[in-house]
């Protein structure tokens, strides 16, 4: 088995890299893949919190690198899904504790018996970023439809495209707010894609459920009713090579449009049942 190493990066902080890593990782594992999540944000680790694994971490990536434990010992299994495990970052050290070569080596080792290795990248374009992308051959660039996030994403895309090892990079547009797009207060998905000239892998709507899911330590993909959860599950399916249509987040603005949508939906449902 030779797994795929995908780095999840963004440039700007706070756009949802870690949330995305946790959710895509969980969704891929739920679909039957063996997945390892690596948190490379040494000193500011958070992926353990989002997965609800903060109390189970004994060894970190720094312990592996400094040979205080074996790689297998440092992998923490997810509570719900035995297919998913986490290699946590150390909280008390900094980015220089791990080198690019060491990370590459870890990825190579994990490739052998996993389908996917997702690397959660720290914000910025300095050493932490360089480390995180060292072992990856694919990248997902997370951004939101905001000025600074898009600008930073463009820098990241520039750096990724200059790197031969990265075979493909795709854009994940997070925290999309259809009501703001409808009133022309926010850039649309098409605008962002045009500006960044990068293929899309997912559109995630803003969802207040993310806050409670983070608070519970349970990724939102586990919530079957959530729209953001659905969007993340779709991203996972696209990563696995399926063709999945993007969710239609744009609501028709006027009254008649709403009625039309309602009827269209009902007819679709009835047709599906027949």
């Amino acid at each position, binding site marked *: 088995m030779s797994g795929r190493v995908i780095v999840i990066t963004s440039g700007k902080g706070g756009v949802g890299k870690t949330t995305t890593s946790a959710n895509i990782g969980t969704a891929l594992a739920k679909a039957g893949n063996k997945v390892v999540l690596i948190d490379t944000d040494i000193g500011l680790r958070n992926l353990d919190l989002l997965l609800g694994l903060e109390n189970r971490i004994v060894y970190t990536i720094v312990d592996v690198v400094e040979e205080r434990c074996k790689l297998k010992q440092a992998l923490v299994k997810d509570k719900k899904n035995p297919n998913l495990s986490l290699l946590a970052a150390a909280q008390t050290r900094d980015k220089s504790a791990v080198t690019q070569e060491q990370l590459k080596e870890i990825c190579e080792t994990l490739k052998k018996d996993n389908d996917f290795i997702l690397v959660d990248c720290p914000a910025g374009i300095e050493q932490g970023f360089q480390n995180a992308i060292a072992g990856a051959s694919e990248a997902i660039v997370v951004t939101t439809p905001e000025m600074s996030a898009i600008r930073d994403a*463009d820098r990241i895309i520039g750096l990724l495209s200059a790197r031969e090892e990265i075979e493909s990079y795709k854009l994940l547009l997070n925290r999309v707010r259809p009501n703001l797009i409808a009133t022309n*207060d926010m*850039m649309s998905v098409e605008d962002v894609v045009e500006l960044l000239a990068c293929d899309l892998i997912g559109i995630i709507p803003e969802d207040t459920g993310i806050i409670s899911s983070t608070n519970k330590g349970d990724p939102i993909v586990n919530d079957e009713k959530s729209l953001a959860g659905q969007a993340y599950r779709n991203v996972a399916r696209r990563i696995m090579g399926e063709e999945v249509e993007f969710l239609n987040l744009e609501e028709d603005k006027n009254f008649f449009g709403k009625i039309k949508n309602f009827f269209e939906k009902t007819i679709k449902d009835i047709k599906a049942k027949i």
Partner: protein
Amino acid sequence: MSFFTSFYNKVFSFFKPQEVSEDNSVKEVARSRLKLVLMQDRTNLTPKILEQMRGELIDLLSKYVELDKDLLELNFEQEGDQVALMLSIPVIRAKDEKEIEEALKKDALLKGIKLADDDEEEESAESETADDESEDNTADDNNEEESTESVEEENSSEEHNSDNQENTAETV
């Protein structure tokens, strides 16, 4: 009667979709600001240099055609991996040979004066302390020559479709 029309308008406006202005919307502002800033980030060209480039292009093209300076657009566009420089020039009319010749002569004269100035400066620089200015000027001249070449290419393509506003592209 007026009651009915106002009632009708009220009902109509209730069902009508909310009017959203396209051009001045927040989204459009954000889009155009970002477009500019991304282009600057990608190419390392500052607004000052762009303005200079625009000015030089106008000077150069004006020798051959009369153009609408205010409507000249200089944009960078992304086409896949490549960045293209898109130049849209509204041409009022093409100049005839005489005018072009005159313009060229005038230009040559100006350049001659400029070169002479440079020589003097160089001499003075040599006689006194070494001055950076002369170096700067020669560097500028080199730049001008380069831009002349590239724009001449554009002119040749302009001749083919001189009816419309031309879009000439040069890859950076």
